[in-house]
């Protein structure tokens, strides 16, 4: 009998929180490593179309982005209209600017990486093909042949 009653007076030992910082730090490092900060502010509406046969874009450092869509927000719509516009880096651009954009992108990369450069076209679902065709034509002129139509993966 006495064997079981022994422990009843003893206080419950508090759970040690000494390892809590370690756990938190572990999580912290994980998120620090996986974080990609958004470099560009979106000036255009950008809802990507859905597709099933998608491929992952590898090596993000070798990808340059072209955004296409109607100006985002009421203010900008009043100022620039509702026609689809092109965004390169942080500002609106014209189709004719693409060649210099591609050249500028090339200059920031090492020479051996230039042939691997991919241009990702991020166009909104409501964009018409006219502007996209113009952009493709400009990319061909700039000899940036590798392109990728950015899509969302279709959940099935």
């Amino acid at each position: 009998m006495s064997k079981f009653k022994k422990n009843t007076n003893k206080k419950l030992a508090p759970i040690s929180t000494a390892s809590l910082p370690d756990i938190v730090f572990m999580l912290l490092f994980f998120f620090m490593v996986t974080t990609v900060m958004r470099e560009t502010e979106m000036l255009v509406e950008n809802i990507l179309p859905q597709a099933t046969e998608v491929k992952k874009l590898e090596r993000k450092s070798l990808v340059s982005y072209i955004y296409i869509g109607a100006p985002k927000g009421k203010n900008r719509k009043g100022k620039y209209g509702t026609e689809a516009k092109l965004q390169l880096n942080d500002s609106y651009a014209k189709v004719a600017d693409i060649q210099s954009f591609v050249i500028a992108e090339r200059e920031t990369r090492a020479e051996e990486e230039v042939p691997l450069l991919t241009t990702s076209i991020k166009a909104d679902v409501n964009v018409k093909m006219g502007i996209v065709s113009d952009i493709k034509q400009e990319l061909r002129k700039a000899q940036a042949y590798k392109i990728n139509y950015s899509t969302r993966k279709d959940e099935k």
Partner: protein
Amino acid sequence: MARSNRSIPEINAGSMADIAFLLLIFFLVTTTMDVDTGISRKLPVLDEEQEIEDMQGNDRNIYEVYVNNKDALLVEEEEMNIDNLREGAKKFLNNNGRDPKLSDNPEKAIISLQNSRGTSYEMYISVQNELTAAYNELRDEAALKKYNSNYSVLPKDKKKEIRKMYPMKISEAEPFKQ
């Protein structure tokens, strides 16, 4: 000399967790985990632009797909629903000379895609998606038959072989001005 005997007071590490939490929450909020995915294509070189008819000289090896400015689909001069495009393209590619209207063999077959300037991007992507799916399914079938495994898990040289059997030839013409 009495000073040297004194031990250095320990720094209180109790607030370490709080600081770490603060940083953790910051990174949690700013993290975007999305991986960029999309349909990859290679644009043709500018001065290689030729009439497809000249290259093949044979109408049966060309599968014409046209999307108009109302997003309607015209395939081989007949209206088609987008849901049937995948099957239609597969039939065309894998014909191997059986039907005189369809392709001789998959290596010669070309899909000619044309759109109008008013076609919506969404429709264009779904057409591209269906065509890619047709090729992917055919490659998968060939891989299963030949190596008994899916195309995506094959080693590189075998993938290349399968790709040679079903080369993806999608030619895009200049869009109509409408």
